[in-house]
Structures are given as C-alpha cells and as structure tokens.
C-alpha cells in the first residue's frame, strides 16, 4: 500500500477549489489555524513560526490507490469549533471539525458513503512543514535524525498512534485520538523535494459499506523541541490524561506491583504479609478454568476429550474444581490483592470448542499463529485463535465474564496475550467497526476485539460497586489499543530481555499506568548452575538485581516478587520505586544531566521525584539542571527521597544540584518546596525529617524580598508552624509567606492529624516479644468483617516477624471481642468520629470513621512499623544468595567494601 501512496502524495495539492467559503481562524494551545480563501488550512506553531505551514485533510482511496481531490465547500465557526465540509468525485459526504482539546487540536473527520459500492478510504492528516532544517522524526516506533528520504515503519503492531517531527525549538505531532480503536494506522515523513514541502502524515482506514458513516478522531499538537518525541508524548498525555492513567473507578490496588503467584495459590499463611511487604496489589490468577474458552466451567462443556490428559486440579470433577476455585479466590483476597481472573484475552479457545461451537469466531490468518498443538493455556488443550467481538464466542465471553465476576465477586481480569494480533475475515466482518484493508481484502484486527472486550470489563462491577479492572500482558509489539484500555500491565520479561530498552515503547504507550516486569532472574539462562560456583551465581544475582533497580527507575516498572523476594537491596528501594511509578512517569524529564548519566522524572509540581543514575563502573560527579517551568510554577527545591539534605542553586528559573552519583545506585530527589516567584531565591539547602506523626522541614534560603513557599505536605498532615529566622511566618494551607532577607532559615513543622503522639510511642508499642504476646487486640462486640480482618493482620504481622523472620515462636497476639480494653492493648474499631492512631493509657487506638478509612490508616501504620520490623523476607533468590554467602543472606557484595 505504501508504495502506492508515495507518488500520489508528492503530486497532489489539497483543496484545489473552494466555493461558498468564508475565511475562518482558530487558536488552540500552541497552534493557530486559518482557513484561507482557497480552503487551505494554514497552521502556525507559536513555538517556531517557521516550522509549520498548513494542516491538511486528505483522503486516500484504497480502490484506485490514489488520493482523491477534495474540494472545500464551506467553512464555519461555531463557538471554538471550525467545521469544513468537503466534496470529492466519489459520492461521499466529508466533514472535518477542528477544535482545541487541552494541549492539542482535535480533528474529527466524518465520512458518509452515499454510493452503492463499499469504499476503502484512508483519512489522512498531513502537516505541511516549512523549515525542515535539523528535523528529527518519530514514526511511532523509532527515531530518524534528519531523514533525507521517506521515513516511516510499515508495521502496525508495536507502534504508537502518534508521530512527530521536531527541531531544537519546536515540533509538530500528529496521530489518532487516544480512544480510537482501529485495525490500521500509519505515519510517515517525506522530506522536502522538487518544490514540495516536507510532509508529516498520519492516517487510518475506513471501510464504508453503502449508506454507512464512520468518524475518526485525529490529533495534532505543537510542542517544544528540547526533549524530542517525548515532548509529543507529553502533549498527547496532557490532551487525553484519562487514557493514560488507570480508570479512576477501578480498585486502586492495581496501581501496585503484581503478587506473582504469592496469592495464587496461597502457599503460606504469611502470604498476606509477604504480598504487602513486597508492594503487591494484584495477582495473576492463571487459567482458573478447565477448558480454554469456557471460563465459567459450564456443565455442557465440561466433559470432552482434551488433546492431552488433564492433570492437577483441572482433572477434578466439575463441582470439586469450582469449589476449589472459589476457595482459592477467597484465600487470595485475604492477601489484600485484586485477584485478576486470568483469560487469554479470550483470543484463544480450546480447538474443538472453537470449531464446533464458535466457528464464526475462527481467525484464518496465514501471517499469524492460529493454533497451538503443544501445551499452552491449560496444558492439556490445543488452542485456536478466535475473535471475541460480535461473534458467538464474543457474546459468550461477555456472558461468561459477567458470570464469573458475580460468582467470585471479581475486581479484575488478567488479560494474557493481549497484544491483539491476527486478522479476522470471518462472517461477522460486515458488522465490525474499526475495519481496514490489505492486499487480501477487508479485515478487522484482533486488537479491536480485545479493546472492545476490555471496555466491556469496565462495565462490570464487584458487589461493592467497584468497577472491574483490566490487568494485561500485551508486550512491546502489541497494538496500542491493548494498552490504552488496560489499567495496569506486565511486560512478560526481564529488564534485560532482548536489550535494555525493550520495555521502553510499552512505557510510552502506557503513559502513567503501572507496568511491572515479570519472569525473574533465571540465573540458569546465564550460567549453568551445576558448573558455576556459588560465588559466581551470587555475583550474577547482584548484577541482575542492580540492573533491575536502575532500569525500573529509568523507565518506570515495578519489580515483582521474583526479583524482590529476599533481595534486601530491592526491598529497600521498593517504597520509593512504587511511589514513583504510581505517581506517574513523565516523558519530559526536565532534568538535564551530562552523558553517560540519565534522568527520569515522576510527577509534577510538589509531587515531582527525579532520579539520576548511570550505568558505568565509576562514580560520577555531575550537576543536574532542573527546568522547573516544565512541571511547576516556581523554583522547586529538593531533598533526597529520605529527606537527606541537598544544596541547590537557582539560576534562570532552574534548580541546579551537584551530585556524586554512585555506581549501580540511583540518586532519587524529592520535591519538598516551591518558591514563588522563582527568582526570589538564588540558593537553598533543604532537609526533611519525617515520620508517622510529623515532619520537620528545614530550608536554608538565600534570596531577597517577599516570597511564597509552597510546601509538600504529606497526606494526613498539616502545617502547624512556620518560622523564618526564628520568627513566625503566616501560614495559609500548604503555603507560607516569608520575606527573604539574604541568608536565612525557614523551618516548617507539620503534624499528622491521624498519627498522634510520638513516633516512638507508636513504633515501640509492646505488641509482642520473643517470649510471646505482650498485648491483646480488642474488638468491639459485633465487630465487622474489616475490623476482624485487620485484627488478624496485626496478629499475623508479629507471627511473621517472630516466627518466619526470626525463627522463633509465633506470639499469636490474642484477639478478644466485647471486652473492656486493658493495657497493653490494641483497639481496632470503625465508627469513630475520625481517624486516629494513638497510644493513650497504655492502649493503642487504631480507629476511623468507616471501613475504608480504617483499612487505609491501618495499612499506613504497618508501613510505619516496617521501619522497625524490616526484612526483605526469604524466597528463592535469597536461597541462591544464602548458598553463596552463608549466613549473610541480605546481599552484601564482595567488592563494595
């Protein structure tokens, strides 16, 4: 197809004639549009007036393999929307509306086929470029620096729905609206030649039957140039922010890492504690069915002859299997994770079932693998590729997924093989949306079916009203839509899979959603463990753990238990890493560091955290220059993540910090305060001492004049006092307003409204000792399910500590209901006037207004306790390490001393 487009693009001009056309203009974000008298849409970027000349709508005809000449018939403004109507030699009604959408321009194209033939059309948004000197181009997958010939991949899978061309001042980005679900898209760049300007284009396909109408949302934005195509990503995320965060109505625990089979099945009574300590929020409940395609386990499908003998629980009689499944889901939920019911994205179905019951869903695609005859989903089935949308199997999948949601009170589905590969041309094709065509005719790619099924999942609800989430396994060579409609994802691989950047494009697609690595260290893939010495294995594991740490920070992945379980170094970093990923990866780092260092930013404003690291063998002394204006209003001041002191200078609105960046260890900076105006301060040294009950923030500031200092105030806390050079300063919410007089100290103290008293009192509470329980947990008479659950979790916490970690007796702190608490005791209750964690009269009160708040403050309190009762737990990796390092299982490396 591409070869047919190129010569046409070169010779065609847009909007060659115009009738009844009124000159109109539109301003949105950095773009100015003007429909000229000839019908051409002149466009200018405010960031570089020479970069962009026009934004054209074009229409490619897949039958004639030529672009159709479009005539602009009219243009009108309604509010802030410019609408242009076009005609062409074919019986098509074509309109395009141009309107501002946050940081971008929305171009909605609607085409009605008024003829009696099926039409194959490619609506194309084309940026006509002015000065192309020094342009680099991103084609949705790779970058070309100053391409001198046509540039653009010819693949759909693994490609982002946007492209960009930029110089060091500005760029222009085009693409599909983020919520578009299409079987095909393409981006390309043509450098200027023979009097024709440089062109950047994006297109998708319409297949329109007679009388049919389709609309597509296209997108354009002009962005700064400094951070290359990451600027385009930034503009895209900011245009469609809701598409690049998880759905706000699903269970927020899907933002955390995966439990990686610590809760499916539950193999230890300590699984809840292991999951919590390893920041696991969801589980991948692998194939909880007997027959692929029958997720319910329906009686009529139960008895069949599988390709291979069923084993394990799948060999149980139906009722026993279903009972086992219910019990496993209940047990997993007690680990406080979202139990993701595994489905192979419903694109695989047991072969006999697929052929005999759902033949209309079969995908026949010689370019894709459509049949597994070796063990795959269940191990005993042969599985066939199917299309789960607008087919009998699609309908049944929706019925079945709703049924298991109700049966198991699900909060999530785990979509495996969610990439969306395979072209469907079966009997349901005429009624499908998102169709495209290729040399073999019309098709609908499986990504359309997968995305529609993901949308369907979001219409399901758990019994408490929580929307059901989609946790998926796409892979970097997936369809973009599979990522857009997921809430949280894994990359089925290690940080070193293929190469160090294999997971990057998945991050670009995911925006600020959670990504996790999967698999594990698998040292046997590097060395033969039967030949390698224990020391060699330990060295290998250390290196892989360090690499995991750095890559996780670099591109925003949470390492799951196969990487962290028993690896103290990673467990130490997990709180920070998890906070970074859940705060949200930012494509525009806005932190300049010299090579070979790299920097990554998470969060905006006072949520910002910036990680700086390198992958060389020597410590690097450098200065990081942070462009505050890209993510904040004023001069942002940082400490280390743990509050350790950092000195910075503020020059030209930038915060500059000298760093000694160690080898194999990141430096993580956390925003603590923001000074407005930015030039009120020229230097600052900031530190923070924070705990459960309060925070003491010290800012040594050099500056002059009145300033407003916005302070990062943690949840549960409020500023209680602020003093500048010892004198009280006015406080308003999270802001203080000192008048700076040269060098001075601003000291801001915060107190928690929930965690009261002192950290010492809360952390040193005598719950238990090596000799046994030294406290009792008191619940009210008729305590609810949540109160009982949390009481059990507190007791388990100390059983875990004294039993599992210290190898002693489990204290089994008693839990009593309906008795007057006596010291030392712990009261856990809901129905209080507010949230409170406080020791009073020898009794620790953990209470809140409702179950949700009680659970939140309880879990936060456990995080506080973790600072005293810290352990990376045990696990397979620590077994490797212990084998190598004897009694020093927590990974002290031989060459670090």
């Amino acid at each position, binding site marked *: 197809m591409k070869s047919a487009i190129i010569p046409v693009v070169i010779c065609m001009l847009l909007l060659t004639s115009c009738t009844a056309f009124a000159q109109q203009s539109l301003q949105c974000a950095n773009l100015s549009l003007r429909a000229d008298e000839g019908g051409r849409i002149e466009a200018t970027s405010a960031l570089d007036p020479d970069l962009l000349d026009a934004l054209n709508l074009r229409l490619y005809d897949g039958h004639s393999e030529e672009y159709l000449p479009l005539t602009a018939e009219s243009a009108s403004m309604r509010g802030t929307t410019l609408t242009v109507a076009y005609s062409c030699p074919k019986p098509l009604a074509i309109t395009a509306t141009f309107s501002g959408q946050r940081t971008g321009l929305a171009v909605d194209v609607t085409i009605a086929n008024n003829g009696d033939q099926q039409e194959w059309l490619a609506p194309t948004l084309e940026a006509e470029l002015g000065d192309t000197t020094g342009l680099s181009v991103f084609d949705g997958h790779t970058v070309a620096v100053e391409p001198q010939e046509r540039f653009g991949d010819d693949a759909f899978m693994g490609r982002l729905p946007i492209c960009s061309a930029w110089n060091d001042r500005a760029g222009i980005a085009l693409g599909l609206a983020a919520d578009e679900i299409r079987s095909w898209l393409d981006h390309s760049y043509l450098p200027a030649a023979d009097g024709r300007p440089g062109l950047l284009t994006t297109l998708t396909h319409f297949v329109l039957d007679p009388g049919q109408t389709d609309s597509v949302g296209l997108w354009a934005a002009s962005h700064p140039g400094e951070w290359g195509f990451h600027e385009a990503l930034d503009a895209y995320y900011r245009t469609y922010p809701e598409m690049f965060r998880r759905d706000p109505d699903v269970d927020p625990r899907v933002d955390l890492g995966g439990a990686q089979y610590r809760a499916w099945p539950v193999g230890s009574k300590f699984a809840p504690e292991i999951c919590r300590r390893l920041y696991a929020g969801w589980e991948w409940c692998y194939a909880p069915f007997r027959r692929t395609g029958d997720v319910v386990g329906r009686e009529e499908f139960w008895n069949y002859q599988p*390709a*291979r003998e069923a084993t394990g629980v799948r060999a149980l009689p139906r009722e026993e299997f279903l009972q086992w499944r219910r019990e496993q889901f209940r047990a997993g939920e007690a680990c406080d994770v979202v139990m993701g019911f595994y489905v192979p994205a419903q694109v695989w179905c047991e*072969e*006999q079932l697929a*052929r005999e019951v759902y033949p209309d869903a079969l995908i026949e695609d010689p370019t894709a693998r459509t*049949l*597994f*005859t*070796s063990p795959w989903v269940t191990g005993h089935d*042969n599985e066939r590729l199917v299309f789960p949308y607008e087919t009998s199997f699609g309908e049944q999948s929706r019925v079945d997924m709703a049924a298991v949601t109700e049966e198991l009170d699900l909060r999530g589905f785990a979509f495996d093989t969610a990439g969306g590969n395979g072209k469907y041309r079966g009997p349901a094709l005429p009624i499908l949306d998102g169709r495209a065509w290729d040399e073999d005719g019309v098709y609908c790619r499986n990504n359309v079916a997968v995305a529609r099924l993901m949308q369907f999942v979001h219409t399901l609800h758990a019994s408490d009203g929580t929307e059901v989430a989609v946790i998926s396994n796409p892979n970097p060579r997936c369809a973009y839509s599979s990522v857009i409609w997921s809430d949280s994802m894994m990359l089925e691989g290690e940080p*070193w899979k*293929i*190469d*160090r950047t294999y997971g990057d494009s998945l991050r670009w697609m995911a925006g600020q959603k959670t990504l996790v690595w999967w698999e594990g260290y698998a040292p046997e*893939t*590097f*060395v*033969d463990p039967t*030949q*390698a010495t224990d020391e*060699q*294995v330990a*060295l*290998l594991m250390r*290196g*892989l753990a*360090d*690499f995991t740490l750095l890559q996780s920070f670099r591109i925003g992945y949470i390492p799951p238990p196969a990487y962290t379980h028993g690896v103290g170094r990673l467990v130490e970093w997990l709180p920070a890493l998890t906070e970074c990923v859940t705060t949200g990866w930012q494509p525009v780092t806005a932190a300049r560091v010299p090579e070979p260092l790299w920097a990554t930013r998470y969060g905006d404003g006072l949520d910002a955290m910036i990680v700086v690291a390198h*992958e*060389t*063998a020597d410590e690097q002394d450098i200065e990081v220059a942070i462009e505050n204006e890209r993510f904040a209003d004023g001069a942002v001041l940082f400490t280390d993540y743990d509050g350790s002191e950092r000195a910075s200078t503020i020059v030209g609105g930038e915060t500059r910090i000298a760093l000694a960046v160690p*080898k*194999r260890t990141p430096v993580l900076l956390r925003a603590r305060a923001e000074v407005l105006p930015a030039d009120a301060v020229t230097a600052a040294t900031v530190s923070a001492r924070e705990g459960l009950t309060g925070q003491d923030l010290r800012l040594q500031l050099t500056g002059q004049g009145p300033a407003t200092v916005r302070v990062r105030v943690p949840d549960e806390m409020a500023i209680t006092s602020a003093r500048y050079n010892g004198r009280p300063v006015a406080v308003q919410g999270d802001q203080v307003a000192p008048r700076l007089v040269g060098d001075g100290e601003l000291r801001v103290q915060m107190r928690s409204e929930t965690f009261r008293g002192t950290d010492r009192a809360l952390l040193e509470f005598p719950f238990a000792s090596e000799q046994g329980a030294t406290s009792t947990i008191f619940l009210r008479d008729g305590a609810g399910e949540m109160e009982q659950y949390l009481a059990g979790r507190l007791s388990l916490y100390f059983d875990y500590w004294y039993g599992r970690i210290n190898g002693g007796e489990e204290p089994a702190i008693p839990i009593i209901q309906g008795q007057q608490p006596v010291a030392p005791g712990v009261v856990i209750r809901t129905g209080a006037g507010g949230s409170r964690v406080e020791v009073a009269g020898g009794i620790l009160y953990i209470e809140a207004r409702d179950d949700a708040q009680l659970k939140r403050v309880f879990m936060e309190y456990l995080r506080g306790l973790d600072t005293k009762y810290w352990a990376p737990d045990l696990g397979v990796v620590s077994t490797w390490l212990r084998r190598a390092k004897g009694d020093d299982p927590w990974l002290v490396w031989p060459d670090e001393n």
Partner: protein
Amino acid sequence: MRRGIIVMIILMATGTMAAAVEVNVTTDPPLEAANLVQNADMEQGADGQPAVWTFSTAVPENFTLGWAEGAGRNGSRALHMTAHDKVMSGYWAQKMPVQAGDYVFRGYYRTVTGRLLMYAHGTNTDVQPAVGVDARAFHGSSIASFLVPVFVPLEALAGPDPESWHPFSVKVAIPEGLEEITLSMGLYFTPGEVWFDDVWFGPATVQMTLNVSGEGERLESVKILRDGSATPVYNSANDPNCPTGQPLPEPFKVTLDAVASDGVYMIEAKTVGGELQRIRFPEEAE
C-alpha cells in the same frame, strides 16, 4: 564411532602381575542403529555443505555457516554457525518420520558464547484435533553485553568451557497422528558461535546388557550409576542373583530393561582384591 557396544580392557597393576577386567555393554536396539538422524556425525557432505542438514532463518545475513574440517568432536567435521547479532535466530535442521512414542533428542555442542536452542518440533493439522510437539532445551549463555562488566562481571559468566564439548538432551513425546518432525539446533536471538556434532534421536529407553569379566580376578560387585543421580540404576549388592558375601558369577551378565537412552552412565566393577574400575557409557565408546 561406536555407540552400541563398548568393550574396555582395563589393565590393573597388582604387584608384579597384570590382570584385566573386560566390560562389555550392549543395548537393544543398538544405539547407533536406533538413531533416526541422518548424517548424525556430520561427516557426510560435499562442496562445503553437510549432507541432509539444512539451515533456516528469517535473516540469513545475520549468520555465517561452516562445516570445516578439524572442528568435529570425534570425527573430522561438525556443523558450525556464527550469529552476528541478536536480531534473529537460526537453526541447523533436518526432518524425519516418527511414530507415536517417547523419544530422546541428544547431541553435543561447543560454544564460545550465545544462547543455544535445540528443539524437536512438528505439527499435523490434517487430523482433528491437530497434534504437535515442541520440546526444547536451552543451553549456553545469554550473555548480554550491556550487562558486562558493570553489572555482571565476566568471571560470573564463566560458562561452558569453549574448548570442550558438552551434551544436550531433550525428551520428546510424539503424539498419535504426528508423522514427521524437525530437529533444530541453533542460536536463539543472541550473537554467538557454536558447533554441533554427534546428534542422536531415537527411543527414550533401550534395553541394556552388561557383561563383565574379571579375566582371572573374581568380581566382588558391579554398579551402574547414572550421572546426576545418587541412586544406582543397578547394584549387584541388591541383586538376588548375587548372593551376599560371595564373588559374582563368572562371567557376570545382567540385562536391564528400559534404560534411559539419554543417560550417561558410570559402570563400576570392583574386584575381590579391592581394585575399583570405572568406565563411562556411552562417552568412552565414542
């Protein structure tokens, strides 16, 4: 190369006398005869190309192939390949007819670096339900250059000795209805270099017969140990045909049914005089 029979004459120095123990191992079927691989020792071929074996990859330019003299394990030649990049895998392969049953695919490789994949695979979609097999073994190293040396010191990756040959083995269960498979050996998406030789594909188990003669010395015990297992495959001390405290019958013979054909065995014969002799099967026959 002999696979079916091993005869070891081991001279034992006992004072000034020289005695011998003869160990004779046979299998039914003989291992060499049971081998379904053609040109298994890679010695046949012409014009610089090995006979029967073909090479397949989606990116031919990523590979340099060889069949040079002097590179072989026991004989002269071996299959050789170098992958220049990780962009694509590539495999030496040959097809063969099979019947349902349990098989073993084994052979030897020598590698400088790279992740090796040896696998037996095939599908028959002409029957319903379709049947297939895909049995794999990965060996070698996926040394990722970007991890070395900052994250992973080279010494931690000391893998198989590049000067030595190393065995691989894959169990292959052929289902009913599958009539042909392919054996493939190559580099799996890593740069690297590897040689393959002495490949065998045949029944997963064979009958093994052991004849041991003390050649004048009485035998006290005979054991057959499989590499990797502490439990003997055979121990004359547990054989009811070998009375405790008495020398073994002369000549000593024992037949074992269903011995794994992918095993490497150590045969230990101990004389009444206390001399312990060991030989390995089948390695010391090749």
